[in-house]
């Protein structure tokens, strides 16, 4: 990293800047464990939850349910938090949810310009590009350019609605149900739903 770690500063304005994060994190974990502040097994459980259990397959189930069940979709659009909880998802970084729906004339795109807010219970942890400066800076001023970069060229006349996640309200996009999927059951439909479509950078 070639950056001074900031060690030795002790005024209030000091900012710790890790020079070798892999080593620094290991040392910090050891220190916190030695002080009785952290249980390493709890860290394993937290990592396991987001590596294996909480991810975009959850959101895909919500979308597939909305595609096949009009009453569920109505509940989802009216009170997303409760409707998502019906499928067993909710909690951390998804305490308050809002769902927006794509139509042939409206395309929704979600961003967090100020940090990295993202609906964890239904999409898991965000990909790097979502948290990156290029996406955060451009999604609000040039959404169509951003979508083109993702390979999505919108038909003329489509309205783009960008949602900047500035509060504790996390957004999920219900993409349009693909044509020709009338015969598919909910579980099969869920396999067609991508993470990117639920952020709004894909269809």
């Amino acid at each position, binding site marked *: 990293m070639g950056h001074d770690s900031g*060690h030795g500063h*002790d005024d209030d304005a000091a*900012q*710790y*800047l890790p020079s070798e*994060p*892999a080593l620094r*994190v*290991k040392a*910090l*974990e*050891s*220190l916190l464990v*030695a*002080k009785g*502040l*952290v*249980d390493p*097994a*709890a*860290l*394993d*459980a937290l*990592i396991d*939850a*987001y*590596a294996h259990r*909480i991810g975009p397959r959850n959101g895909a189930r919500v979308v597939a349910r909305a595609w096949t069940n009009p009453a569920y979709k109505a509940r989802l659009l009216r009170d997303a938090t409760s409707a998502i909880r019906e499928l067993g998802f909710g*909690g*951390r970084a*998804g*305490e*308050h949810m*809002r769902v927006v729906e794509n139509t042939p004339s409206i395309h929704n795109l979600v*961003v967090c*310009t*100020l*940090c990295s807010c993202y609906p964890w219970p239904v999409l898991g*942890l965000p990909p*790097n*590009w979502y948290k990156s*400066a*290029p996406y955060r*800076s*451009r999604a*609000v*001023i040039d959404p169509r350019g951003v979508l083109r*970069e*993702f390979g999505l060229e919108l038909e003329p006349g*489509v*309205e*783009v609605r*960008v*949602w*900047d*996640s*500035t*509060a*504790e*309200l996390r957004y999920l996009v219900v993409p349009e149900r693909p044509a020709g999927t009338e015969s598919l059951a909910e579980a099969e439909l869920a396999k067609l739903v991508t993470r990117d479509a639920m952020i709004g950078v894909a269809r």
Partner: protein
Amino acid sequence: MNGVHDMGGMDGLGAIAREENEPVFHTRWEARTFALVLASGAWGLWNIDASRHQRELIPGPDYLRMSYYEKWLAGLVELLVKSKLVTRAEIVSDRPERGTAIARPALLAGQVAALLDRGTPFTRTVEVPARFALGSRVRARNLHPTGHTRLPRYARGHTGVVTADHGVHVFPDSNAHFLGEQPQRLYCVRFAAAELWGDSADPRDSVSADLWEGYLDGA
């Protein structure tokens, strides 16, 4: 604060770099950092707004250079020190100082699932009358607080329409500084893209942000 974290509308920050089949964590240290931040947050000594603000305090050039989890690590260390859970000497030596060990009950593995499932709701039941009705035209105030705020710079001074009333939510601008939750009405405000970005924006497009009542004037 008008920091580099408030990025909406900036140019020149590069191309969007995507990674096919990106793993949830790229390295073990990223995963451990993520988990340390969540486990430490479970003590309840700080809140999500304080945590965000701590990362905003990273000097701009460093903020832009550092990776995501480096910023999380930097923020965590500062919060640990400010909360007097560790000392800077301990961060340097990596060893507990004699006589400083604090026996906080650590988050246990068996508590993790319930902790995540519960989350931390940010709505409050206090009765606060709504100043703005759906459809009201509002102007985002031209505020430049030096502390934490969730009013993006690109919206300040601009006029939009209230499209949703989300009820009463904890106010980040005070909560981040441990000045109380000061719950306020939170609205979704839709700004026409052309109002924010001028004539070059597509006249059909809009940007919506969720904004607290104190950020808004009637227009």
